[in-house]
């Protein structure tokens, strides 16, 4: 008898979900919301939802997609709640690309500019380099940050992002392009020159 496929062999228990998915939920929420406390709230809420619905999942295959969606929804809802509570407007309009304040990451940390033939898998970032990129992401206005995180960090297709955020595909592409341009501006000073 052959071994069962790994996907079907895993029995989904709260412990398995916690071990395999809690960190991903937390860091996605943290990148979207920009702070630890809110990310923790979202992680807690999403894990509770998963545990309550665990009996409806037959295996792990459908879980990651569902978790992305639930995490994004929870993060957006929490942000809205915070915004309403503080009664101050956030810079989420299409003309506002950056959060208030300027970015000033340590200038001594350098990012090795990837060669055009490099793929993301070829690159191993040091902790300080990751911090530079995450700091820059946190400086984007939420509207742009959401799209940028989902597209360029999480690697989701634009069509899926449009559905998740309830915006048009054209809006996803427009926001992603502007976010990338802003990120380029923020990161360009840290890129080492490519050797001739």
């Amino acid at each position, binding site marked *: 008898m052959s071994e069962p496929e790994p996907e079907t062999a895993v029995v989904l*228990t*709260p412990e398995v979900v*916690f071990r395999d998915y*809690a*960190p*991903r939920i*937390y*860091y*996605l929420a943290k990148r979207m919301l920009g702070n*630890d406390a809110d990310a*923790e709230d979202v*992680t*807690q809420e999403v*894990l*509770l939802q998963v*545990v*309550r*619905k*665990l*009996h409806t999942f037959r295996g792990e295959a459908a879980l990651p997609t569902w978790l992305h969606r639930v995490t994004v929804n929870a993060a957006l809802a929490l942000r809205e709640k915070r915004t309403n509570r503080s009664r101050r407007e956030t810079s989420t309009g299409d003309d506002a690309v950056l959060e208030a304040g300027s970015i000033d990451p340590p200038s001594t940390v350098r*990012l090795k*500019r*990837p060669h*055009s033939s*490099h*793929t*993301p*898998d*070829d*690159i*191993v*970032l040091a*902790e300080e380099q*990751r911090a530079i*990129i*995450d700091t820059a*992401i946190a400086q984007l206005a939420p509207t742009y940050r959401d799209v*940028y995180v989902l597209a*360029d*960090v*999480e*690697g989701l297709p634009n069509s899926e992002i449009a559905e998740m955020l309830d915006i048009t595909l054209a809006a996803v*592409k427009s926001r*992603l*392009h502007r976010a*990338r*341009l802003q*990120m*380029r501006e923020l*990161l*360009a000073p840290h*890129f080492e020159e*490519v050797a001739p």
Partner: protein
Amino acid sequence: MTEVTCDEFVNQLMDFLDDELTESVRIAVQAHLSICTHCGGLMATYCATITITRSLPRCPAPLPASMEQKLRAMLAAHPSG
């Protein structure tokens, strides 16, 4: 389209990289690239930004220990449905 400006180049950049431009616009963008070192540099750092962001680990570290404890306690108090 016979010629594009630097602003137009920036506007078309994502579609150019995604190969979503019409033939005539793509040729005009390539022609601009061949003569404009500023836009060539911009495109290089734009692409580098995408590549390096995609290399970010989705989970850069384990959960903070105090948070892990809290979440485990929360899960223990809410048995699965």
